C-alpha cells in the first residue's frame, strides 16, 4: 500500500543529495515495500559510513516511514570509480 516507486526515490535522492549516479531497484515486485539503492554523491566525501547512511536516511525520511525494507550502498565518486565495473548484478 505504499505510494512509492523506484522512480520517486531516484528523483528524491538526486534532488536532495545532488547525486552523480543513483540507482534504485524495486525488489518487491512492485508493491513498493522493498528497495535497494546505490548512491554516488560528492556529499559523501570525507564522511564515515554511518554519516553517509544518515544523509540518505534523512533525504528519504518521509519515505522510510512507509518502506518496509531499504538497503543502500553509498559511494563517493572516487570510490565509485573503483567498484563500478563489478557492481552489477548482486544477490
Amino acid at each position: 500500500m505504499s505510494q512509492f516507486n523506484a522512480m520517486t526515490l531516484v528523483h528524491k535522492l538526486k534532488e536532495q543529495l545532488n547525486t552523480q549516479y543513483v540507482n534504485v531497484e524495486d525488489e518487491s515486485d512492485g508493491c513498493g515495500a522493498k528497495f535497494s539503492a546505490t548512491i554516488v554523491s560528492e556529499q559523501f566525501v570525507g564522511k564515515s559510513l554511518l554519516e553517509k547512511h544518515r544523509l540518505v536516511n534523512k533525504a528519504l525520511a518521509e519515505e522510510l516511514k512507509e518502506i518496509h525494507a531499504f538497503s543502500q550502498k553509498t559511494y563517493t565518486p572516487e570510490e565509485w570509480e573503483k567498484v563500478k565495473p563489478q557492481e552489477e548484478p548482486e544477490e
Partner: protein
Amino acid sequence: MPVVTVGNAEEYQKFINADKTTVALFEADWAEQCAQVKDVLGDLSKIIGDKLQFINLNAENFPEISMKHQIEAVPTVIFFTKGSAVDRVDGVDIAAISSKSKKLAESASSAAATGQTLEDRLKALINTAPLMIFMKGDRNAPRCGFSKQLIAIVNDTKLPYETFDILGDEEVRQGLKTYSDWPTYPQVYVKGELIGGLDIVKELLANKELEAALKA
C-alpha cells in the same frame, strides 16, 4: 479503580494501549479458579490501583485476542505496557500474580519518582552489553530477513552480544529511532555507540573491518 470487565475488543485495546500498565485476566465462567484470581486482582487493585489498571475478559468471547496471546488455559494473566505484553502468568499462581503486579507498580512509581525518561531508559538499554543488537525477534528466531542476516554475520565473529526484541516494546521501537536518528532495524551498538544497520555491517565485513569495529 476496581477490576473492569471488558465487553468489547475496542475497550480492551484502549486499556492495554494506555500509559498505565494493565493487568488483564483471561477467564471463563466455568472455571472456578478464575473467581479466585479475580478476587486477588480486586485486592491488588485496592493497594496499587493508582499505578496499575486491572481488567478481566472472557477468553472465549475474544477468540482472536486469546489466540494472539496463546491463551491455552484459564485463568491466564497478562501484563501489558503501552500495548505490549511484558509478562504473564499461566494458571492459578497467586504468588506470581501478586509479586509481578507489585513489581510493575513499583517500577511505575520509581519511574515517576526519579523522573526516568524514555531517554534514560534507551541509554541504559544500548549499554546493556558492549555489543548490543536491537532487532525484530531474537537471535534464535529473528523475525525479519535483515535481522536474520545480521545475526548470521555477527555469530560468525564469535563475539558475545545481547539482543533486544523491539517487536515486544513499542516505546523502545519508536523511541530509539528518534534517539539515535536511525529509521530502521536492526541496529548495532558497540559500547553505546551506533555502528549502523545491516548494510553497514555487511560493508564492514566486506572491508574486513567488522571484527575491529564490533570490538572497538
